[in-house]
């Protein structure tokens, strides 16, 4: 694979990811948890179960294995059905869920970079309001999210133990619109669009251990403060009444996060569990008029089966099968101050290619989020992810290749 193939993919990953969830309207959107399409297929529980054919976008400590170079890419499409007191509505979404590469330097040292969503925000709906002089057509819409990158390295520090350190640039844009127009043709419409761009830098520390049977992993994300550049445009009757752009004194605070997992391999079967804690309850974004926030916890359980493939075996024995379950509380409270929850069942499949040095991964997820009584809306969603991890020797010198 050549660099000219990689760049367009990196650019595509930098583009805003499409997402649509009414619950994402709170805070800065729903937190995104998947470190790879492989992880998506096994209930997001892949931290303690590194795989040499899958690039972990969240944990540099998992950048290891026999391959000299690795490139990973993931994408997804999903359909969400929202139901509330008014009725139900469905939306289709999709986008790039992550991209990254890691390069073997020497003696087990790896360097790499990844880019993935951190939060996803997307909502859109219209409503009408009766006035004594006409009807108001109200529109609310929000798009964007926060992306995170990791630029770092990992190294072996002991038998089966690797540590990783990465800078964690965080950036993104969230744009929200509220507008109204009227059936009365002489009335002026009004709208307000608030766009906030974020940029900040934090750190990610990661570690992994494996003895071939058992495994453990941990990722720590340091809290960070992101600068905010805010643009506000107020429209009045088709022209701008206010158009201001300013760098705000306040910062967007992102919390300390800790993810830990364990795994155990039993023959061809791999079992993994994972827990993630995000300290949103300790950050102060109130100055932004932000919604109430609370600490969020995610629990994941996953399973992966890699049949013992032998020459002349049927094709299905060459595949990797996955399943999992995860549940997470939303850091941004609902309008009723309730902490909504997302729960999902997942399935996945890995299809190796290129002499087993690379793999295409597929994942299917079905889940639910929110509660109509507690959160004002209940959502059901299905999601299909596809990605690939490609390993090559193109960063390695000839001598090393021929070892």
């Amino acid at each position, binding site marked *: 694979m050549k660099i000219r193939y990689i760049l367009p993919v990196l650019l595509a990953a930098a583009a805003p990811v499409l997402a649509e969830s009414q619950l994402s*309207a709170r805070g800065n959107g729903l937190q995104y948890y998947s470190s790879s399409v492989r992880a998506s297929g096994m209930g997001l529980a892949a931290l303690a179960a590194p795989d040499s054919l899958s690039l972990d976008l969240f944990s540099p400590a998992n950048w290891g294995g026999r391959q000299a170079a690795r490139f990973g890419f993931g994408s997804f499409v999903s359909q969400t059905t929202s139901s509330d007191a008014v009725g139900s509505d469905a939306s289709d979404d999709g*986008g790039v869920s992550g991209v990254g590469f890691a390069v073997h330097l020497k003696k087990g040292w790896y360097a790499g970079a990844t880019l993935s969503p951190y939060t996803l925000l997307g909502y859109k*709906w219209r409503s009408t309001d009766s006035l004594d002089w006409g009807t108001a057509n109200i529109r609310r819409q929000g798009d964007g999210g926060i992306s995170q990158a990791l630029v770092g390295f990992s190294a072996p520090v002991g038998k089966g133990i690797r540590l990783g350190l990465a800078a964690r640039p965080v950036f993104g844009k969230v744009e929200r619109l*509220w507008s*109204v127009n009227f059936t009365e043709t002489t009335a002026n419409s009004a709208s*307000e669009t608030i766009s906030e761009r974020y940029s900040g830098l934090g750190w990610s520390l990661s570690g992994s251990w494996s003895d071939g049977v058992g495994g453990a992993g941990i990722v720590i994300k340091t809290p960070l403060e992101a600068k905010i550049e805010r643009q506000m445009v107020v429209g009045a009757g088709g022209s701008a*009444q206010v158009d201001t752009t300013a760098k705000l004194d306040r910062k967007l605070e992102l919390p300390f996060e800790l993810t830990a997992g364990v795994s155990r391999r039993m023959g061809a079967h791999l079992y993994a569990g994972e827990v993630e804690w995000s300290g949103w309850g300790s950050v102060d974004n109130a100055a932004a008029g932000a919604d109430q926030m609370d600490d969020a916890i995610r629990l994941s359980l996953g399973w992966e089966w890699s049949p013992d493939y032998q020459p002349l075996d049927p094709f299905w024995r060459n595949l990797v099968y996955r399943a999992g379950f995860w549940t997470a509380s939303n850091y941004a409270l609902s309008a009723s101050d309730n902490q909504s929850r997302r729960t999902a069942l997942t399935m996945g499949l890995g299809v190796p290619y290129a002499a087993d040095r690379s793999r295409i991964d597929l994942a299917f997820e079905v889940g639910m989020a929110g509660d109509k009584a507690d959160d004002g809306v209940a959502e059901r969603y299905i999601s299909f992810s*596809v990605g690939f991890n490609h390993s090559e020797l193109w960063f390695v010198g000839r001598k090393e290749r021929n070892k």
Partner: protein
Amino acid sequence: MLAGLTALAAGCSQPDGPVGSNVGGGPEGRIRSVVCEALADTSYKVPRVGTGGSAHLYVGSSHDLTSYAIARFHRPKKTYEMTVDSARFSLAWQGGVGAGTFPTVEGNLAIFPWSESSPPADGDVPAGTPLNLRVDAPGDSGFLSFAVPTTEITSWLAWFDSSAIDTNWQDTVRIDSALTLALRAPGAVDKLIRFRARSATADSLRPYLIIYATVKDSAADIPHDSTFRVPAAMDMFLMNDAGAVPAERVVVGGGGGIRSAVKFDLTPLWAAQDTHIVVVNRAVLTLHRDRALYDWVQWSRSVWPYRMTTNDWLTTPDSADFGGFTLSPTAVDSASDTLQIVVTSPAAEWAKGDSLNFGLSLHSTSEGLDLERIAYFGRRAADPAQRPRLTIYYTELPK
């Protein structure tokens, strides 16, 4: 694969129903309204404005109003030979203002330059040659005829050089060729006769100069009778109002024009701006008619609002400087005698700071066109509900 995913993402549909609207998040606007009371109001007469294009020509006097009318006719192209046998002006009239009977209307013929866009002053209309009047059908409506001496018409046509001017059958170039009929009803007749003007819908009702002549179209032609119907090319009425403008009222009217100015206290709007961004969606000025005044004339169905550009009118009303007129829909509620005028445009400018609140200048839509006037209660009306008020509907957005 990437291209396929990109195409798929681009084609995604998004929900557009109200589902989720109670979930919240993001900026949230609220539609509110405030009622602003009048701070000041006044009514004042305006200098005469051109009345060209009016549907009617008023002649006579009533209710402190005196008016006379003039109509201008362009010379027709003369044939090879023409002998004027007779000529007359024909005018239709219908109703009028005042309790008096149909007055004696005098017609005078004069040649002098004028135009509707620059109406002549009273003293500029010459007395001219008196004409003989004939009333065809006295009553609520009918026709008037003024016989014109054939010598006057023959003289008028004599120096028309058709080949040097244009191919039109009328001479519209030389303004000194215009023959003007002036209509007057001298004395206090308590009747303003309403003649139909050149903009009358029916052709037969318009003012005409009718020339009966014996003509030859060429040297070889046999003399024969011909009738030339020359329509009025311009007409207007010149009205003077000697009455006083009613005090403590908001009056608008045409004819001898009356305008009003009113300024509202926008404090409630400024209070809303202290805490929010305010976008004016709609503003409605409500006036209540005082039926005790001007019951002798139809009331103006529509009022045009202009935006005052200075405060000068507070001290010298007739020097009011205004602009920014926007054609505004109005709503008349005859049962409650209220008039509602949409004034969104000036109110939005005040809220945005694009212009200062110097008030509104209210003009009758018939100003310069017809005789209409109406009085509305002013800010000191005994019943507060009858006072002028400005209702502003606005959207309140977070700062």
